[in-house]
């Protein structure tokens, strides 16, 4: 089998990188080499930004309705290639084929919403702000924007931004993740087929050098980022120093509160997906469970949850019976194992140890695989309760009541998402009202906002003012110009 060396897409052409730094890409389920990704140089990245800047003048004057039609043409192409787009994600990331299909669908939803840009970017006006004087707010595009993409949703995340940016009249550069760049290459082949004018959409593969080039280039108007909190903060600071707009989504430590009246049996599917979906490698993954109630209620939850976790079939995501794929690489697995050991050392106890693979296809190399792991007796001060593990690890704690649960959530430095499982509308409302997070679930474990809502995030989970997706991101990619006019 030939192993491709990935190319950049700059100014409407596929171009080979001259970089000598090349990352070997592996399918984590089979431990096989699937590609080579050059880490683009600063000059190559600058060339992409400059191509985007050169394309801007013409693209901006293309009517919004015509710009949107490129997206309308792209949607059926993506539908036609749906299975292949999903397969690439599973092969390079490891997630299950259903998870990849879900990611593909959510990506397409972004285009469907962004294609409504002629309505979304409309301004507003008021006649007669003074005698014979009218005032208008016109939303205008700004120039070149970019996305520094994460490894965990390699297909979807750039689509939280790119379609909205270009439909609004900007041009764009995606820097794919050095770990999972193939999904973007597959997507850009479709962009190429649709025939966007050269320079409107550009792709560079790379790591820190390419990311810094995007943030430093004087023609770059703004940067979007999704990844860890440490890098999100650094990106935000660098963009701030360079006078760029920045929208940086960071890490998370999401809590689930189980009230004594929670409809547990009905909720178990949602909870299993929340903790172990995408092998826990998502910023919306649930991580900590706070169980309110007496011994009996607590034990009932633990028994049901551990039984469901034990039942999860782990293996190659292309096998349709598999419910959880591998970690994206061996280093991620080692990092998660380090957290499991730290949890044990700090006094938590294992109700299910994912280091021993139970429901697993033994014919696969286990280099990147971990099973679902469940800790009990977790206290809020423990490392496993505080830090983002980014793996299939759940920590269960008992708490005295809803107030205490909310206090514990607020002690945590992250604020991406939190969920409550209850039959009480009163408790649900109190939780939704008080909890300081960007996304709240009520009897829903994964609070993934749809394309037409902003993707929330508070505290160390988000750096910026407006969020990705929906109207927020339209605001990010445009600037209102105020016109006050009088005619004599």
């Amino acid at each position, binding site marked *: 089998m030939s192993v491709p060396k990935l190319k950049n897409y700059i100014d409407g052409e596929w171009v080979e990188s001259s970089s000598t730094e090349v990352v070997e890409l592996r399918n984590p389920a089979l431990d096989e080499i699937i590609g080579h990704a050059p880490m683009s140089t600063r000059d190559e990245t600058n060339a992409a930004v400059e191509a985007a800047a050169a394309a801007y003048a013409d693209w901006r004057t293309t009517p919004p309705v015509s710009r949107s039609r490129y997206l309308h043409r792209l949607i059926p192409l993506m*539908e036609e290639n*749906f299975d292949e787009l999903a397969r690439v994600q599973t092969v390079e990331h490891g997630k*299950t*084929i*259903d*998870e990849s*299909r*879900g*990611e593909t*669908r*959510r990506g397409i*939803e972004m285009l469907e919403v962004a294609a409504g840009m002629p309505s979304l970017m409309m301004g507003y006006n008021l006649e007669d702000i003074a005698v014979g004087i009218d005032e208008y707010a016109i939303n205008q595009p700004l120039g070149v924007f970019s996305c520094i993409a994460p490894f965990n*949703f390699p297909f*979807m995340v750039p689509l939280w931004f790119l379609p909205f940016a270009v439909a609004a009249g900007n041009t764009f550069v995606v820097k794919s993740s050095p770990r999972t760049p193939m999904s973007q290459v597959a997507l850009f082949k479709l962009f190429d087929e649709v025939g966007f004018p050269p320079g409107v959409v550009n792709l560079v593969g790379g790591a820190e050098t390419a990311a810094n080039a995007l943030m430093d280039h004087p023609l770059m108007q703004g940067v979007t980022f999704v990844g860890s909190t440490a890098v999100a903060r650094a990106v935000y600071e660098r963009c701030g120093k360079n006078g760029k707009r920045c929208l940086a989504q960071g890490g998370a430590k999401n809590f689930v509160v189980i009230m004594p009246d929670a409809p547990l049996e*009905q909720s178990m*599917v*949602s909870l*299993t*997906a929340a903790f172990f*979906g*995408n092998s826990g490698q998502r910023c919306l993954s649930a991580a900590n469970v706070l169980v309110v109630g007496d011994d009996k209620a607590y034990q009932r939850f633990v028994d049901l949850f551990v039984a*469901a976790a034990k*039942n999860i*079939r782990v293996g190659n995501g292309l096998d*349709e*019976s*598999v*419910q*959880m794929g591998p970690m994206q690489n061996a280093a991620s697995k080692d990092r998660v194992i380090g957290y499991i050991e730290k949890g044990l050392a700090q006094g938590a106890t294992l109700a299910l140890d994912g280091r021993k693979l139970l429901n697993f296809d033994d014919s696969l190399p286990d280099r990147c695989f971990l099973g679902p792991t469940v800790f009990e007796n977790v206290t809020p001060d423990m490392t496993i309760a505080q830090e983002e593990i980014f793996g299939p690890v759940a920590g269960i704690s008992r708490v005295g009541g809803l107030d205490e649960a909310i206090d514990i959530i607020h002690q945590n430095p992250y604020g991406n998402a939190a969920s409550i499982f209850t039959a009480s509308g009163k408790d649900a409302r109190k939780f939704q009202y008080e909890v300081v997070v960007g996304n709240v679930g009520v009897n829903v474990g*994964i609070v*993934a906002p749809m394309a037409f809502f902003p993707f929330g995030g508070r505290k160390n989970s988000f750096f910026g003012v407006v969020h990705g997706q929906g109207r927020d991101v339209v605001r990010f990619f445009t600037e209102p110009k105020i016109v006050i006019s009088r005619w004599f």
Partner: protein
Amino acid sequence: MKLNTMAAVMSFISDLETRTASFYDAAGEKHPGLADTCRARAKENRSFEKQVRQTYYGIITDTLESNYCFEGLDSDDYGLNLDPPSSVETVEGRFSEVEKTCQAFYVKAAELSDGLMADLPRLFKRIAKKRASRL
């Protein structure tokens, strides 16, 4: 084989509807008096497959619950004898067996995924109802 994910259920339905469509094609050729009925059923079965695929791809999102929606569904419970019926006397019985098995599958799949996956349980119920009307 356990059909624990939506992807597995989709593959099973593809296989089920393709094979039952071919079964009706073959039965129609063998028994010309039933050709119209068989042709209509084969066409409808292929349309069922298409409807399920389009609905599945239309509703699957990154909420990921589709990996856990079908606990308890097993393809072994829905085995079919799809050899063409040899005589006209056995046709009715064989058609009825096939339809009952398919109907039972869709009823169970709808029950397990009800409230978890938008639209699909409704479509499964609709297909089960159409199967029942063939009995």
